[in-house]
């Protein structure tokens, strides 16, 4: 899922400086799973923010709401009835949710409370790592289920580079060399032959946002 982390509270306090009553909206999906923007985190942040403002003598009123998702207009509209009564919205959803709200509520200030970081896997409770960069042309069939776009620091299609040592990437001790992982997986599956063919140059134009925001259109689903 999408993984994010809360922005430092000083930054949030500075965003909220001009406002006295805000909606603090969480999201029941991805940010709940990575513990930065769900109902619990909303309650915790609300308490911290109120206390911080109390100590400065400028009370902050916070309405807390956590819709199931914020990235779809129907869910965002759940907030419509309260939006009119607040000065601004601090949204703990990922960047998509913030932008969805901004598009729905044109005359309300919508601000992000988290930094959306990556799409990743929950490796253990409290530990998440990047796994996918939405390149738009999945090559996991060729690489034994390990992605070199997301996991190789140089995004090599025909790795490893000369810096792979004992399965570790040369730039970070904590990072596995993606190509060592690919090699091990293909070997275990008896598919090493896949590595003899060169994977040709990538179409970064369609396989990233280099040509602007991408779209998927399903004519059959349009109402």
């Amino acid at each position, binding site marked *: 899922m999408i993984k994010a982390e809360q922005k430092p509270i000083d930054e949030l306090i500075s965003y909220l400086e001009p406002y006295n009553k805000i909606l603090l909206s969480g999201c029941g999906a991805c940010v709940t799973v990575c513990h930065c923007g769900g109902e619990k985190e909303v309650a915790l942040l609300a308490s911290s923010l109120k206390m911080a403002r109390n100590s400065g003598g400028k009370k902050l009123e916070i309405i807390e709401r956590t819709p199931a998702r914020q990235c779809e207009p129907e869910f965002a509209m759940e907030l419509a009835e309260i939006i009119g009564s607040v000065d601004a919205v601090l949204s703990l959803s990922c960047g998509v949710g913030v932008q969805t709200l901004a598009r729905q509520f044109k005359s309300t200030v919508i601000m992000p409370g988290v930094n959306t970081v990556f799409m990743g896997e929950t490796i253990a409770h409290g530990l998440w790592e990047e796994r996918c960069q939405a390149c738009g042309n999945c090559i996991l069939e060729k690489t034994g289920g390990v992605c070199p776009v997301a996991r190789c*620091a*140089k*995004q*090599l*299609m*025909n*790795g*490893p*580079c*000369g*810096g*792979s*040592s*004992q*399965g570790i990437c*040369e*730039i970070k001790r904590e990072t596995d*060399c993606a190509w*060592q992982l690919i*090699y*091990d997986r293909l070997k275990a599956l008896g598919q*090493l032959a896949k*590595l*003899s063919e*060169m994977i*040709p*140059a*990538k179409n*970064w134009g369609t396989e990233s946002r280099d040509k602007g925001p991408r779209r998927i259109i399903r004519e059959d689903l349009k109402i």
Partner: protein
Amino acid sequence: MKAGSNLEKVLSAGHFALTSELGPPKGNDVGVIQKKVDFLRGNVDAVNVTDNQTAIVRMSSIAACSFVIKMGMEPVMQMVCRDRNRIAMQSDIFGATALGIRNIICLTGDHHMFGNQVNAKNVHDLDSVQLIDMVRNMRDNHTLLGGEDKIEGDIDMFIGGAANPFADPFEFRALRAAKKAAAGMDFIQTQCIYDMNRFREWMKMMRDLGVHEKVHILAGITPMKSAGMARYMAKNVSGIIIPDALIDRMSKAQKGADEGIKICVEQIQELREIEGVHGIHLMAIEWEHMVGRIAEEAGLLPRPQLA
């Protein structure tokens, strides 16, 4: 002849080749290049001109190569995938060949985290294998990547690639070199060798795959200047293995530099005996003035003068 460079002629004629390396200045002081060329001229067949090595900003390889030619030596231009996209790369290759550069070595490039511009955007539009394939295509099919656009003029490049018998996964290293050979690589320069046993094992794998017959392999050597340098490299540089016996010899020596050169000459002589090794790539980093002496003591002088 694919490109007609001196290096290609030396190797094609069956001579044991010798190349070296120089780093361009961290600015535009051409005097730095002049000094290094003056030490190397006549002692090697061609000299690699590095491309922002370890991601530290230096004069571009292409510019430095053109000075090297003016100063009377043949360069091997290095091109890394880290800093340029395919547009810039093909454009630079047009320019390079127009300037008379006839050798190119295609590398991934050290990660920019090691350098002095750590917040840069990583390019890696292509990887080294795809780059080799692209240059081969430019040379043999006269088209840009994609095969559509015709190139005006001939792109005569002798194409090299790197190989590291000391990185992991070890069993895959020879296969990866074979992949580069299939993509169009003409010659290999290996990472510097200290662990002879491992190098021999890798050479055997290369011979088993038949790569030694398709590609000229130049064994990489870096002379050690001191025991401190030996220890530092063993500990800090990824992809280099230095056996304890060598570190020991360096530590016990009276004069580290002389011992380092002695070891280097011994290594050259040993490597010459290995089937499939067609030359030496001598990386005497900031020690260019020693290249002549090493070449002399290893019996590699004079270099062949070919038409």
